[in-house]
């Protein structure tokens, strides 16, 4: 599943376009504590958060996550959007709360791997 497909199927609203829309989404991480994200997010993950401070961009770049999804209707700060634009970091937002947004992606990725096994 590419980032572009996941965004389309889960109706994430694009805030900053991904530099590579064909980036393959393998998993994700959900946390609002940036110190925790720095410790646990993996390269290529999709990161779900309600934290909108501009440090989000720096932590995303540091950990190499492919995109940040702001949940529960949280809107990233202006500085966060500007920095992400400069860094080529994809930002999306969704009105779904973290539990649901994460669950949707999890289901999507599980089905994909099931199909890969059975197909």
């Amino acid at each position, binding site marked *: 599943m590419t980032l572009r497909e996941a965004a389309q199927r889960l109706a994430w609203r694009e805030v900053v376009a991904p530099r590579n829309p064909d980036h393959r989404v393998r998993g994700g991480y959900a946390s*609002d*504590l*940036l*110190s*925790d994200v720095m410790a646990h997010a993996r390269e290529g993950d999709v990161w779900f958060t309600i*934290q909108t*401070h*501009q*440090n989000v961009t*720096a932590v995303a770049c540091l950990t190499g996550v492919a995109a940040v999804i702001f949940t529960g209707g949280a809107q990233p700060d202006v500085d966060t959007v500007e920095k992400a634009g400069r860094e080529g970091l994809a930002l999306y937002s969704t009105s779904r709360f973290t539990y649901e947004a994460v669950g949707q992606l999890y289901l999507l990725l599980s089905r994909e791997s099931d199909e890969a096994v059975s197909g």
Partner: protein
Amino acid sequence: MRQYPADLHIHSVLSPCADRRMTPRQIVERVREQGTEIIALTDHNASANVGAMLGAAPEYGVTVIPGMEVQSREDAHLICLFPDLDTLAEWQAMVDERLPRLRNRPEYFGEQWQMDAADQRLGVEERLLLTGVGLTVTEIFTRVRALGGICFPAHLDRPANSLLSILGFLPPELGIGTAEISYRVTPAEFCEKFRELDGVTMISASDAHRPEELTPAKVSLLMEAPTWAELVQALAGRNGRGVVRVND
């Protein structure tokens, strides 16, 4: 110029998590016994007991700096200090406007008492104080400074409500000049881990919620006199004033 033992982060019974014995008079009495000369009262998102502290303190020869521990929208705890009660009242009005309309549940969070200088209970704060206000860290720093106050992050070394744990690193654009760490770590071992703290004045405070936690001050302020103007210079390390670590 001499050293004034200082504790710039103390809670009274207005903070739900504080012991009922943390009344203004009991705090200054205990503080004095410990040899501390300058303190700040910093209740969570509230300041109703600062006036009582200012009233009770002179008898004990303790200087009280009006303050508050505000919880930002990101849940970071920031210590805000002000030159006088009027300025603190202006700040309190901004916080009140943005405090979520939730009622305190004393059975879960604890009692929130407003006191007078004779330790008589004046009333009960009904709003839930232990929550984030609708102001970002950046907005808080900007507004407190515009009022002529000082702002610094509280207990940076703690896992909960610390600016460092929430935002991962100190946002450089804030121009943080002072930061608080708890008694659990020394500045040397802490700054070793976080290089961005180079050049930041590190202070330790008790963050006392119980009288037993009001121990001898971990830092002294090197100043001419225990005044606001001197405190500002000491925290900035200007004009020969500064922060001195005790028993390091």
